[in-house]
């Protein structure tokens, strides 16, 4: 027997997906509302916390973003994106040492994180470690160029 389509939908994943669609269109308040609904249904969903943190960052609610990232990390210690966003939010709060620690952890989990390397470069530069900063910036640039070339290729294909 086939499961009816309506029953097959995971409401939490669906709400997060809708939230992401709003976020892509820079409608962050609507995105946050959808993530919140998802988290009410399943507060143990790390993605929900991480995505809401991302929307908080875009709306400059950095302290709340850090708190959400920490919730996500408490549910999944190896959640690279949550570590990366935590680093980004901490940087905005000018907690440079903590930001550096968070992005370093993110990069240990995912070495292809462009923003992670970039934030690491900025933090190292702020701390006066300009040689190390150049290394982080170089890696960020390398990855960003690969992404840029891919994006251009997709545009040509379209």
């Amino acid at each position, binding site marked *: 027997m086939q499961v009816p389509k309506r029953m097959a939908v995971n409401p939490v994943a669906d709400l997060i997906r809708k939230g992401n669609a709003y976020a892509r269109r820079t409608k962050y308040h609507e995105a946050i509302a959808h993530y919140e609904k998802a988290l009410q249904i399943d507060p143990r969903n790390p993605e929900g916390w991480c995505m809401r943190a991302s929307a908080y960052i875009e709306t400059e609610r950095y302290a709340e973003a850090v708190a959400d990232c920490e919730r996500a990390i408490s549910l999944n210690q190896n959640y690279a994106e949550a570590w990366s966003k935590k680093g980004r939010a901490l*940087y*905005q709060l000018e907690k440079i040492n903590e930001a550096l620690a968070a992005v370093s952890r993110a990069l240990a989990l995912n070495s292809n994180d462009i923003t992670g390397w970039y934030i690491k470069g900025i933090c190292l530069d702020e701390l006066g470690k300009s040689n190390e900063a150049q290394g982080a*910036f170089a890696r960020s640039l390398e990855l960003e160029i690969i992404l840029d070339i891919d994006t*251009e290729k997709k545009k040509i294909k379209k």
Partner: protein
Amino acid sequence: MKTNMPLSKPVRKMIDQVEGLLDTELLLVRNAEGVTGGTLIDIYTYDVEKNIIILPSQNIGLLKDFIISKHCVSLLIRGAAAKKSHYRVCSFNQKTVSKGMRQIYIDSLKDEAKKVKKLPVQKLLEMLFIIYMQFHGNINELPWNPIINSRVYYKLPQLRKTQLYLLLKEGKTDMDCSMEFEDIIPRRYFVLDKSMFYARDLFLAHTLPADSLSPLINIPQMKKFDHLEVKEMMTTRWTHTAWYQSKVFGDTMLAMLDKDLKVNWNPTASLDYYNELYETGVKLTDDLLGFMTMKDWFVWDTPRHQRAALEKVDVYEHAALKDIFGDLIAE
């Protein structure tokens, strides 16, 4: 500065300098539809209240920083010109459009006479204004490009690798642009268009200095001219190709760039300095227009004049066609 984007230290300093020198605020905005290279909408050129740089969403790190820096220099040049002297742009009016389109028409006829497959009349008429506006865009952008890039190169050495990548990309795009119309565009305009970009790229290649920027290495159609002996280049085989002609015209334009752009690229920033860069750009624009015999195609006027002209393009195009073809053009 209004943004929630993380920015590297030299770029933050650059933005502070813009806001300090021009006593203005700069807004940075990300947009998924943002064009490659970003867009600057400034209070000196457009009828807006705030200076805005729109960045493509996919540029999140140093690529974004370079785009911001480039537009910051552009903003400083425009702002300094507005504050220190008279900020003018290469605008157009009904008379200049007529002159330009008439010249393009005459050159088209020369080309069409040699063609086996002629361009339909309606297409030919449409092409005149398109080519005119293409050069309007080029002449308002191209002379400033080497000035801005040279300044960023010296002012922000941390971004040099990023700059090199984006310049290579830009050079290839500009040289590839309108290739599918090579057989339609009158040869003279195809060659002049390509020559301008060729000269810009070669100027940047030795000013920055970055050998890898050279169009002779990167542009497939020009590769054959790299290290080619003069004697070989003078053979009919080469002299008849548009790309050979682009190189010849481009080399002359490069000499103009070399002559006009003898500038100290790295002094302390001041409004006087950026105004000097503006004057340099105006001189280079005039020299290039003179070389291309397009001096009466455009007119230096206020940005407001240009905005008004851009709203009347349909009227100008039609009036120019009437001027050239008389009653053959319907009302």
